[in-house]
């Protein structure tokens, strides 16, 4: 493994001072790489917790009229599962990957505000602990959307609902601070020559992710504050009997909730756009179109929230407007997918694990994207919303757009983070199990929903083929779990026994591969000048030219780090 001898940068970064060691060095760190690792490990633990909750739900639904868990426990499980996966896994996992790699990819030595960065992480952890502490008392049970009046003090008197509110607050502040940090870092700390048109596409998506968070998160913060004061301080924001509006919650929640979908999947799209060209050994097809479509999706993402409310009592004009804006967002999304296919076209594709997770992610996301068109058509949505069809849709979107791409990122970047390669065989097995598991679990859920089974029900009667379909879905969920487990074992083994990666095992395109694996505390001693959106490729070509003495193709001379003194 990793037989390819990467070109060694002419001046490799070296350690100017001894790395701090021991657990106190982790608690007090402001190094973006260590904070990134803490983010990734923490969120992966929450991913496993959320996964266990999902498996318990699938066990309960494995047979009709099952009584494995009580109705109360079941409601708590899906509330914990949804909240965990959204607030404690996907969004902060993207922040973790970005924390580690954005400074490296843009040639910076750290984030703009290192201590603020540490605060972001600790607030996230605090939010997670407050939320999970509720399992020792009463976990929340009003769903991850906490729709009022069910979530108000009359119908959800337990402190679990308040734990959910504090989680939304703490992770929200964490995300906003992190987003400001990313934005400032990307806007100000790029390597010389890295214009907006040379920004790596993953960094583009993190920039847009940050803008989305800055606009969307304050809305949920306001909404949960109103819920908190309604619950405890006698206000009536959502109380129809006292002049408030129950529908207001749905508007505020989804005004945050829909951009949140793009907060979760856009960085995944960025990962695909980084990884495909590396393994197809071909430049990304339509760099500008991909960057522009990211921005277009983000903008349109703020105009479509009410498509979550087609069944609510809203005026017809809103239904029509939101249907059209939701259709519109399918255009830039479709453009991205076609650009990825075109990137593979006429390349020389190396089937390494990161590539497998990427193309699997695209296929899975396609199913979720297309089922989204059904849901955007409001008369069709009247039949499908709040059923298992929607459960299938959102899982195809998030499994394809977020989970599989995160796994692609893990396999792609593990060598940089640890200096060792992950096992390729185990990686393929993990991908195969997860891919088949996702199809088995969620394809059939479309049919379950079409047959009339609503979501968030703890049991169903044995009518039609519901028992068989739900059984299939339950089996699939355990296949996904097996796939995840294989990756966990792979990571644990490779930490000590993986093949040594070297600085650039994939012959990749972006600057994180310019430094050693793992990078030293200061990332780079020398930061190269950037001449294109594939700086490492330029550097490799330049080294090749100098060693063979032949002119670079196209006559471009690319100075490497040796000629530049770092800022």
């Amino acid at each position: 493994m990793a037989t390819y001898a990467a070109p060694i940068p002419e001046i490799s970064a070296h350690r100017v001072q001894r790395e701090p060691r021991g657990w106190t060095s982790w608690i007090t760190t402001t190094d973006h790489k260590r904070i990134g690792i803490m983010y990734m490990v923490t969120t992966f633990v929450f991913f496993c917790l959320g996964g266990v909750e999902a498996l318990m739900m699938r066990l309960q639904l494995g047979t009709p009229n099952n009584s494995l868990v009580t109705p109360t426990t079941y409601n708590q499980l899906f509330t914990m599962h949804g909240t965990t996966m959204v607030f404690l896994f996907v969004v902060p996992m993207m922040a973790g990957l970005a924390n580690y790699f954005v400074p490296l990819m843009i040639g910076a030595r750290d984030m703009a505000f290192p201590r603020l960065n540490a605060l972001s992480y600790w607030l996230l952890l605090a939010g997670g602990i407050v939320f999970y502490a509720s399992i020792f008392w009463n976990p929340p049970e009003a769903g991850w959307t906490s729709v009022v009046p069910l979530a108000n003090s009359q119908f959800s008197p337990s402190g679990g609902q308040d734990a959910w509110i504090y989680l939304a607050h703490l992770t929200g502040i964490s995300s906003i601070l992190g987003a400001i940090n990313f934005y400032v870092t990307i806007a100000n700390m790029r390597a010389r020559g890295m214009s907006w048109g040379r920004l790596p596409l993953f960094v583009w998506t993190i920039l847009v992710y940050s803008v989305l968070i800055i606009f969307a998160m304050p809305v949920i913060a306001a909404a949960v504050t109103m819920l908190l004061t309604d619950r405890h301080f006698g206000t009536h924001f959502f109380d129809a009997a006292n002049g408030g509006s129950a529908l207001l919650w749905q508007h505020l929640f989804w005004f945050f909730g829909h951009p949140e979908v793009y907060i979760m999947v856009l960085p995944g799209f960025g990962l695909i756009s980084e990884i495909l060209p590396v393994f197809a050994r071909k430049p990304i097809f339509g760099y500008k179109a991909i960057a522009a479509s990211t921005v277009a999706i983000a903008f349109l993402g703020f105009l479509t929230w009410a498509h979550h409310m087609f069944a609510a009592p809203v005026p017809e004009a809103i239904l029509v407007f939101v249907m059209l804006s939701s259709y519109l967002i399918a255009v830039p999304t479709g453009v991205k997918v076609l650009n990825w296919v075109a990137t593979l076209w006429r390349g020389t594709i190396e089937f390494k694990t990161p590539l497998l997770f990427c193309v699997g992610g695209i296929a899975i996301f396609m199913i979720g994207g297309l089922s989204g068109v059904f849901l955007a058509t409001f008369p069709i949505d009247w039949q499908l919303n709040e059923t298992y069809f929607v459960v299938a849709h959102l899982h195809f979107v998030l499994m394809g757009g977020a989970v599989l791409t995160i796994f692609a990122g893990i396999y792609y970047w593990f060598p940089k983070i640890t200096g060792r390669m992950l096992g390729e065989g185990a990686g393929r097995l993990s991908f195969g199990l997860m891919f088949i598991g996702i199809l088995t679990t969620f394809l059939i859920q479309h049919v379950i929903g079409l047959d009339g089974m609503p979501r968030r029900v703890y049991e169903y009667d044995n009518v039609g083929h519901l028992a068989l379909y739900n059984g299939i879905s339950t089996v699939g969920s355990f296949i996904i779990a097996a796939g995840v487990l294989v990756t966990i074992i792979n990571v644990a083994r490779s930490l000590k026994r993986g093949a040594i990666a070297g600085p650039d095992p994939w012959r990749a395109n972006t600057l994180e591969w310019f430094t050693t694996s793992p990078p030293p505390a200061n990332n780079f001693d020398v930061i190269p000048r950037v001449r294109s959106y594939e700086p490492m490729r330029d550097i490799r070509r330049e080294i090749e030219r100098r060693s063979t003495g032949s002119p670079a193709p196209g006559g471009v001379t690319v100075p490497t780090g040796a000629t530049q003194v770092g800022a």
Partner: protein
Amino acid sequence: MGHLAPSLLAFFTPESGGSPNANQIDSLYKVTLYIALVIFVAVVGAMIYALIKFRARKGAVPAQIRGNTRLEIGWTVAAAVILVALAILTFAKLSSIENPPDSGPGGVELNGDDGLLYASAERKLPPDGKALNITVIGRQYLWQYVYPGASEPDGLGAPYSYETMVVPTNTTVSLDIVSADVVHAWWVPELGGKFQAVPGYHNYTWFKIPKPGEYHGQCAFLCGRAHARMLATVKAVPPAQFEAWLARQKILIAQANAAAHIARAKLGAQIGAGAVESP
């Protein structure tokens, strides 16, 4: 295409057959399904083809293509055209889904605007303005249906039923959906889409059932611990049978109210009038 095709298709389509609006949604869904399948097969097919055809081989050189403006504009426009076509189709179908037709000749006799309990702003009525208006009240964890025919001027005394809604065949039934506590959603799949019952708001839908039969559904919006047990049945019967059922329901409710009145009076005499809550 043998007779296997319809049943295979039914596997992937929503429930329908109870009411024209459900049937129209089903046909709109099918068109969308065909378009989506074609797009999926084309795009994923192209990707799989590329993965097989262009896998790394000895001597293969990757083409260094960075984009193709014409192609990219082309597929952006193509995607937009497909969606515009879909939007036009949806608008064409919309009126048959949203607007109820007149009751059929075999339906129940209706007055123009009969027994509305609540002021309605956006309720859609048939062209002749006549529909059987039923108020659907969601409450944890039971559906209540209030029929027209209030015996008192303030709207009280109207016949009602729980869980099972009995309706006449061939009659346009207009539903006014409200909630007494949390958000619920009214849904009987074969009779059309679902509509939330939100406290403080009215939501409306309709159905028209041609033949006698029973249709089952359940609350489709998380409403609490027994959400899964909040069931609904719509029973369509011939108009004469419906009239008889409604009359009997009125008598039963009047009897029960009278009995409750007597019980309350007795209790009031025993423990003092102020201590008994009036309904």
